[in-house]
């Protein structure tokens, strides 16, 4: 039986959020409520009415086992870019030069 979580982007800052059991939104996919496909459909419809809080509400399939999304796209969306970026990813001068 497939299970789903409900996700969206927060309107103000665009960050990825997930629906909790309390009907609020969290940035942590682990804290998302898990729904059956039928339940998720109802929740998506309800959450879509929160147009001043979130945009693009949809249901995300989870892996058969475990709690991670089944598609790579959704896993990356849930956890962020797979590469270090910005100041944390600065390459040392020596390495940059290929020395």
């Amino acid at each position: 039986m497939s299970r789903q979580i409900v996700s969206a982007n927060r309107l103000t800052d665009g960050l990825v959020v997930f629906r909790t059991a309390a009907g609020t939104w969290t940035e942590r996919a682990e804290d998302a409520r898990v729904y059956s496909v039928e339940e998720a459909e109802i929740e998506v419809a309800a959450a879509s009415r929160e147009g001043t809080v979130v945009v693009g509400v949809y249901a995300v399939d989870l892996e058969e086992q475990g709690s991670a999304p089944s598609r790579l796209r959704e896993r990356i969306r849930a956890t962020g870019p797979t590469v270090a970026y910005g100041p944390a990813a600065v390459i040392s001068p020596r390495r940059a030069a290929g020395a």
Partner: protein
Amino acid sequence: MYRYDEFDHQVVRERVAEFSDQVARRLSGDLSEEQFRPLRLMNGVYLQLHAYMLRVAVPYGELTSGKMRRLAHIARVYDRGYGHFTTRQNIQFNWPKLSDIPAILRELAEVEMHAIQTSGNCIRNVTTDAFAGVAADEIEDPRPWAEVLRQWSTFHPEFTYLPRKFKIAISGGAQDRAATFFHDIGIRLVRAESGDVGFQIIVGGGMGRTPRVGRVLNGFVAKSEILSYLEAILRVYNLHGRRDNKYKARIKILVDALTLEGFRAEVDAEWDRIRGSVVEVPAEEVERIGAYFADPDWQALADNPPELAAARSRSAAFNGWVSANVMAHRVPGYAAVTVSLKPVGGIPGDATADQMDALADFADRYSLGALRVSKEQNIVLPFVRQDQLYALWQALVAEGLATANKGLISDIIACPGLDYCALANARSIPLAQMISERFSDIARQHDIGEVTLNISGCINACGHHHVGNIGILGVDKRGEESYQLVLGGDATQTAAIGDIAGPGFTAEGVVDAIETVIGVYLAQRQTGEPFIDTYRRIGLTPFKEAINAAR
């Protein structure tokens, strides 16, 4: 550098005010997402995989140190400390808050920048050669014309809702460094036998799912008639381009449907009708705009000063950097320097706020305050004295910005791919990192020589994979990332779309396949023959056979 006049200032100020109001109404709920989406897209604001993305226009890639510092400031204050320079000579910020965007746009407007024409079905930000005005092979500086086109196309009432986005590139070099054969309209400055300089007009080039090499629509259009000719093209496209199917909406599809001759007949008929009635730019206005791009006060210098020669023989690393990243200048004693944003293991095109500030300082110290964004996702310092190259190089080394790989295999062009992009099938960045690690030995890269390598995370081809000498396309294979290898593409005047060498690679597999491809090239090349020439001489087959044998 073009400076805004009062009209430009006002247009941008009004747009910022208008969009600030729209953002406020969206946040309060007065505007729904359906109503707001087209408005935000007209202001360069996308919603990506993880957050909003703001695309800021860098008209024809030209920046000053002051603008670069402002971009650094925005990256630091409103984003996560970095930005991404794109193949369209723009910069993208990956994490801005919607609620901050009005403030960001105000800060940009203060330095004569904006996000207009970076999105939507309008004439997009015009691109050109990053070496415009300094390349030794230049017929004429394309920047005044790029600026004329910017003024003509910005908020052009008739061409704001075209069937699809519309991209124009203009190049002044004998060598085409602006990919004019891969734009909706490509414009090349050419000299007629009479000695007059005018424009060759190329139409219907493009990438995406239907890659096309543009075709010459008109061999010579006089400067005094350029706007009516472009209007005629756009009008034919606006009228007959398909609006029912966005995959068939680009001008290239219309040119296919009508044939080049049929399309030309339509354009000529329209041109005959409007010729003389459309307001062309008067010569004085072109001259006025041209004055903004006038030469700086060059000093009388000689090429190859003794300091340079001495430093080159003293330091092999400096010498390697000069041979790869320093381009001949049309003025003796000067050089145009490419600062690589492709360090080994880095993210192609990304620069941190600190690096942007450093680049601004180097521009002030060594390049008369001028910088350019190149379509190869690097930064160009266009006005460097040859006797200061060594000092500049040392400063770049300290910032990790002295990678000596311009035009070499690790100078990889890559789109954001699945790490950021909502449309992606596969990641581009980790693959670029793996390839640059595999070929990290700079001496080996110099031995392999000139080769372009482009990666796109999906068929939209933002990373120009169709025209890479080596191209990689990410595809979705039943939920898994898979890569297709393409060989023989060429973005220059010898334009070509690459041939598919093999589908179904894993990321590791594609890196191995590139190694194999380079092995075939090294074994087969003749003296001084770059990769693309060997490929043209021996064809796809030997490469394909070697790849299959190694798989």
